[in-house]
């Protein structure tokens, strides 16, 4: 019988619920509300009218907030009225509150990243790799992980504009139609289309289509950071590209190539390379020749610092040596053809590498940086040829890439006034074009220009039309992954801001009817055997698997065109002894295409640990020579162009060389990009090499710039934190790592610990040896766990929120630059069995559960911060402000700051993870929401039967799932057969700070280097802790 109190007569509402209308009003953008209404309906989850700071399921809250608020208003102090809004018509596949997975892919210039996208109630919330895909191990890179934020980014362009006045979709269609009709009459004369490198078969098909209709069309393809396509066409044949098999390679020489960096060369390489780093197997050896520390340089067994512009000289010298040793005339010929700038290199080094490569004949790889000169590419291939690597470790694929005009050609055409209409589909030439082209002015001269982009960026400012581009999660499409396999691009959600895809425009030009996947399906059909139609089943399989099997490019033994090689070698540019500037692909914003993404901006750079900035990296010696320190300004000028940038001293950097990442210093686009770094594009010449030689450097007397790094101290201060040894050490005493605790007290416990009862005991093993430090885990964690960003200023104050961070240690056994080593070490909550943080929490907000997890109950936390003080790894993060609810530039305004999260960002939140409020502590939870999810589905499956007899569904933590080199292994350490148990059984395993006897559930596997005894300084390799021990005893 109900107690007859509190029967609420909520004021009667008009029969037609006003939910969506109020929603629209709140949103101030009817289109958005509409698109929401069309796309999702909420399910029976709570809509908390009170809008408490700790809010899960923000999405449904977004739906209900408006009405719920009216509830508050009308019911006064009584319980506010909240609503549940069910579907009107049930939607196919959708079970309210259950995840739905789709296979898709993210197109990038390197190649599509195969993905599985997690959607909740019709909104994509998480990106994972597609494990089925041959060229993917289910891993992803930073950019793929962060693209989820890119989708919901409230700063995206929202409307079509013509001459900066709002235009309708109809106007656009009319415009396209008019272009088409004009082209039909004059065969496309005066029409130019500028696209990026997307590897999309459909684009290729439509291009062919359009080209056949309008023969006079000018088709331009441009990338800010191009590969050396032209030279490969010459060396190996049109459209033929080399591919490398690192799993087979015993000896690898990188000539300024950062091949381990996923965003540089896809995920496959890191995976193959990592497979060969296991000291128990046949371990490979990596030589790196580079000007600045790259990920690959960090992994090197031997690293030589050489200016990027002199890598040509180095390669030639090496080629000469190898040619002589092998008495290989053609290689010697190539080498001889090189006009050296007369730089000499340590002969011992050259000899060592040469002999090692020869010893590994047929199983070596010499790989040159993708933006190196044609000469270096040719020589590298020449060496591989001479060593018989071609056909074994170095193969080639016949890509479908058709030659197209370059940006330079386009500029010429515009200059000649022969371009009347220019469609720029994605890409941002005004930012990235070489300064000497003066592209902005050229554009102004074109009568009709249209720019399709996700942001109203530099280019949009000078084009007549600006069209918001659809995010790849909003549109249909297809793309080839790095091995040529075709992957679908599926829309997970209707365009939030009516974005339009380049396919739609191209199809319209080609006169094809655009209707959902039709264009893509047509392409897919054309690939079929009969080339006519394609069966639904095949199509559905394509969509379900996320790739079309058997569409990979055939791999064959490359044939090097000797004469072309010689001429390529002769084309080597002259190198000046003066400073060079090296243009880096940013680890955070790539070539600038991601500068709007605050997750990426806040992700520390691989090596410098710099956030929200790039910097002019100079070697310590140069810094002394120029009399500058971190943050001092430099003026870099070459060929009439000059930029100003603040300098940062970079250990391990070569002298007379300055490295600076591209894609920063953009102005007036969105507040995320404001005051972030320095634009280096103006210094590039149209050769678009990765370096510019002969740059004059002048320190400026400006007050110094504030750089913020997530890690202030660079070396281990004589503490054995990250541990490494050489292959020899390992073979002598496999457990050398755990023996490094030296004189530290042996852990002892004064009383028996209460037993952890569950059959599931979670643990994690992390392999320093294969981790390349690529940050993928960081961003994956950020996406999975609703981690807020805090901005440059807060990080400067030491208020980073990342749950997993990558400590990057520099160490050098003899304290010399030459022998500097870099070791990345990921630190997340160690889930100690006897956790120091727990004892000191007065509120019992952090305790242990029966599965050995160190829990954190946000809603119990009162924020004494004692736990964090007592955490030896300092992995606990405190919400100093209301980072989720307040704008980052108003944090200090207190109650006067605007409250509330951008509506679109609410959609991006993981519904199973609480969004934390101000004043509470948070930390890595081993993705407990995934653990609970798995346990629940196990119980549901078990139903009325013994649950322990039901197997636990396989799952991974976010960081583990993202890791391209499979360095992170998570699982049940109670099960001796589990991967994690095996990993922990490895002799290299050690616990960090074992002497504290906190018994961490996270263990580390020491890094092993494989030096070549014949090399100079070989005895100083893998000795990061030797200096440590010395320091300890001194």
């Amino acid at each position, binding site marked *: 019988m109900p107690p007859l109190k509190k029967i609420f007569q909520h004021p009667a509402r008009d029969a037609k619920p006003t939910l969506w209308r109020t929603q629209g009003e709140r949103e101030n953008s009817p289109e958005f509300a509409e698109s929401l209404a069309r796309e999702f309906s909420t399910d029976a989850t709570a809509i908390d009218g009170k809008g408490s700071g700790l809010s899960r399921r923000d999405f449904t809250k977004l739906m209900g907030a408006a009405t719920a608020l009216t509830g508050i208003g009308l019911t006064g102090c009584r319980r506010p009225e909240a609503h549940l809004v069910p579907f009107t018509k049930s939607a196919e596949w959708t079970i309210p509150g259950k995840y739905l997975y789709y296979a898709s892919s993210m197109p990038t210039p390197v190649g599509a990243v195969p993905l599985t996208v997690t959607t909740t109630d019709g909104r994509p919330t998480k990106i994972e790799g597609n494990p089925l895909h041959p060229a993917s191990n289910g891993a992803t890179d930073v950019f793929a992980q962060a693209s989820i934020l890119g989708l919901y980014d409230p700063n995206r362009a929202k409307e079509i504009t013509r001459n900066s006045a709002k235009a309708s979709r109809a106007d656009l269609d009319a415009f396209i139609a008019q272009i088409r009709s004009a082209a039909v009459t004059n065969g496309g004369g005066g029409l130019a289309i500028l696209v990026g490198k997307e590897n999309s078969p459909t684009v290729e098909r439509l291009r062919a289509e359009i080209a056949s209709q309008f023969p006079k069309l000018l088709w331009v393809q441009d990338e800010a950071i191009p590969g050396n396509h032209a030279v490969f066409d010459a060396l190996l044949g049109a459209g033929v590209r080399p591919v490398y098999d690192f799993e087979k390679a015993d000896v690898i020489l990188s000539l300024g190539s950062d091949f381990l960096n996923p965003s540089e060369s896809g995920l496959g390489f890191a995976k193959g390379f990592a497979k060969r780093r296991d000291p128990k197997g046949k371990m490979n050896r990596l030589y790196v020749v580079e000007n600045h520390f790259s990920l690959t340089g960090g992994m090197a067994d031997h690293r030589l610092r050489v200016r990027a512009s002199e890598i040509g000289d180095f390669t030639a010298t090496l080629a000469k040596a190898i040619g002589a040793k092998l008495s290989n005339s053609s290689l010697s010929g190539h080498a001889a053809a090189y006009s050296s700038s007369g730089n000499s290199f340590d002969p011992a080094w050259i000899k060592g590498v040469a002999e090692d490569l020869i010893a590994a004949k047929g199983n070596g790889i010499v790989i040159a940086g993708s933006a190196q000169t044609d000469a270096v590419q040719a020589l590298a291939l020449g060496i591989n040829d001479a060593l018989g690597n071609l056909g074994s470790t170095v193969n080639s694929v016949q890509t479908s890439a058709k030659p197209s005009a370059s940006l330079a050609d386009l500029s010429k055409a515009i200059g000649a006034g022969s371009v009347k209409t220019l469609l720029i589909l994605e890409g941002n030439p005004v930012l990235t074009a070489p300064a000497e082209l003066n592209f902005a002015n050229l554009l102004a001269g074109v009568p009709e220009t249209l720019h399709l982009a996700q942001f109203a960026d530099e280019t949009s400012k000078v084009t007549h039309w600006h069209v918001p581009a659809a995010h790849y999660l909003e549109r249909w499409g297809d793309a080839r992954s790095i091995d040529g396999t075709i992957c679908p691009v599926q829309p997970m959600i209707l365009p939030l801001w009516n974005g339009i895809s380049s396919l739609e425009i191209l199809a319209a030009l080609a006169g094809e009817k655009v209707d959902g996947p039709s264009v893509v399906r047509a392409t897919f059909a054309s690939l079929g055997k009969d080339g006519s139609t394609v069966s639904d089943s095949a199509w559905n399989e394509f969509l379900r698997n996320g790739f079309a099997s058997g569409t990979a490019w055939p791999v064959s033994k490359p044939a090097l065109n000797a004469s072309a090689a010689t001429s390529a070698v002769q084309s080597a540019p002259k190198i000046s002894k003066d400073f060079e500037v090296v243009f880096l692909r940013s680890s955070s914003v790539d070539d600038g295409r991601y500068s709007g993404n605050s997750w990426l901006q806040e992700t520390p750079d691989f090596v410098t640990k710099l956030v929200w900035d790039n910097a002019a990296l100079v070697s310590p010696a140069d810094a002394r020579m120029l009399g500058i320190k971190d943050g001092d300004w430099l003026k870099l000028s070459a060929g009439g162009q000059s930029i100003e940038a603040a300098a940062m001293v970079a250990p391990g950097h070569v002298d007379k060389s300055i490295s600076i990442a591209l894609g920063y210093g953009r102005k007036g686009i969105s507040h995320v990009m404001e005051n972030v770094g320095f634009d280096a594009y103006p210094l590039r010449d149209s050769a678009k090499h990765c370096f510019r030689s002969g740059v004059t450097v002048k320190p400026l007397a400006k007050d110094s710039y504030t750089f913020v790094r997530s890690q202030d101290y660079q070396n281990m201060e004589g503490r054995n934190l990250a541990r490494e040894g050489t292959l020899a050490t390992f073979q002598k005493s496999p457990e050398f790592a755990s023996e490094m605790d030296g004189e530290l007290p042996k852990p002892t416990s004064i009383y028996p610990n209460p037993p952890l009862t569950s059959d599931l005991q979670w643990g994690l093993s992390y392999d320093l040896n294969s981790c390349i430090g690529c940050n993928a885990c960081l961003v994956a964690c950020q996406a999975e766990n609703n981690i807020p960003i805090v901005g440059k200023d807060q990080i400067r104050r030491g208020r980073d929120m990342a749950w997993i961070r990558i400590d990057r240690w520099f160490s050098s056994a003899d304290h010399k630059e030459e022998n500097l080593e870099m070791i990345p070490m990921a630190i997340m909550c160690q889930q100690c069995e006897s956790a120091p943080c727990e004892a000191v929490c007065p*509120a019992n907000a952090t305790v242990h559960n029966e599965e050995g997890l160190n829990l954190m109950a946000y809603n119990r936390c009162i*924020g004494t911060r004692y736990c964090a*003080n007592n955490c030896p790894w*300092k992995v606990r993060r405190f919400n*100093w402000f209301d980072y989720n609810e307040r704008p980052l530039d108003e944090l200090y305004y207190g109650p006067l700051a605007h409250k509330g999260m951008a509506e679109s960002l609410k959609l991006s939140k993981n519904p199973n993870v609480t969004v934390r409020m101000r004043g509470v502590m948070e930390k890595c939870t081993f993705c407990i929401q995934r653990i609970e999810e798995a346990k629940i589905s196990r119980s549901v499956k078990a139903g009325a039967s013994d649950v322990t007899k039901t197997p636990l569904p396989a799952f991974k933590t976010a960081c583990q799932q993202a890791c391209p080199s499979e360095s992170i292994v998570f699982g049940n350490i109670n099960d001796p057969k589990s991967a994690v148990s095996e990993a922990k059984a490895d002799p290299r395993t050690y616990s960090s700070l074992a002497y504290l006897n906190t018994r961490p559930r996270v263990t580390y596997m020491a890094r092993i280097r494989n030096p070549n005894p014949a090399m100079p300084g070989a005895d100083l390799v893998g000795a990061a802790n030797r200096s440590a021990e010395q320091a300890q005893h001194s």
Partner: protein
Amino acid sequence: MSTPSTVTTNETVDPGAPDLSVLERPPQVLNHRGPLWVTDAVCSIVEGKTPLWWYAAITFTGSFAAIGGACILYMICTGVGVWGSNSPCFWAWDITNFIFWVSMAHAGSLISALLFLTRQKWSLSISRAAEAMTVFAIVCAGVYPAIHIGRVWFVWFLFPVPNSYGMWPNFSSPLLWDVFAVTSYLTVSSLFWFAGMVPDLAVLRDRATTKIRKFAYGIASLGWLGTARQWRHFEMMYVVLAGLTSVLVVTVTSIVASDCATSVVPGWHATIFPFYFMVGAVYSGCAAVLTLLLPLRLIYPQLRDLITPSQIDKVCKLLLLMGSCVGYVYVFELFNAWYSANPFERGAFWERFTGSSAWYAITCLSINLTVPQLFWFKAVRRCLPLVFLLAILCNVGMWFERFMIVTSTLTHDFLPSSWKDFHPTLVDILTATGTLGIFFTLFLLFIRFVPIMSMNELKAALPGSQPDHSNHSQPSTGEAH
């Protein structure tokens, strides 16, 4: 009616007068003052017209207190982030000042309680003020634990009240110990202070002329008549409270010390901390007593016969003793770190004195190792202005010690990758000065409205105050055991 304003004092008291023979104990009250004079001298401070300097002073201190309050309010509704605290230095000035104030409180209790138990008569005239200082210092200390947390509105999670969550606090947390320790310290010391004051309040009541005073002091003195029975219970209570307080002082310091000692942080994780904090506490407390009493003596000439140079001399000696203990701990800590051969321990102290925290670590050491040693010299102990100056220095030194212990340790813990330096913000600074404001405001109110000395104890100790046939050597011994 007696007119207290007409109290005369003998200006010609020479501190170093030869008639003070080393053999006999110096008298508690100079110039052979009688009970009536004592009463008038003490009451006159309360009964006289409010001096202008008092108004000026309290406006000054009060405004600081107000600013501090505003900062706290701003902090609570904006976030702890308005302080300079960061990761790894999650605690900074909040806990620094908490420890500083709590420690300062201790000397008050010790001087009144421990010296009372050990029959150190010389403390009689300063004990009341010392106790008051204790209470006010705890008030200031109590401010921080209350506000420094992220979600003040949930502070009730700290108390074991049955609730609909079925959750309870974690009794193994030193912070929870703090809650209980500080609460009971505040309670006990205020009781000690007030109860001891009742008879003197009664005196004020009897001498009261205005209705308000009659009412206020009447209520406060609970109708005390000074009957033999009341005195008997009163003395018993005083002994008991003195005993309890002395134990409590040790307990509270040890508990506060275990905030550090029970953690694993190198530089904190040391068994010497309770002792460390204890001696530090008394040291800073004695310094504080001197800083407060010497100006009083200057402002109210009649007190010069009550707060005698020999007493100040004794406090200085206590200061010297405790200062030396503190110095010993410093050296011991360093030795221990070296002897542990533990790179983390060694690193912590190496960084403390070479790293970013060097400037304040060295300031702290140089003050606390040298200044108290000056009190070896009688000349220094007898030169009151100098004593005052040094006492203030000692307090500054102790504040820096707390700052060093909290901040420099946290900023250089296990992993250099997480090291970060601490920089206070304006809010930090104003909140700190705010507590200073609160402290002095309360103390000004104290000297204005209640007897700043225990008249009954003084009178009972005056020569000839007891029946000469009585064979009781000291007051209260009969009752004490």
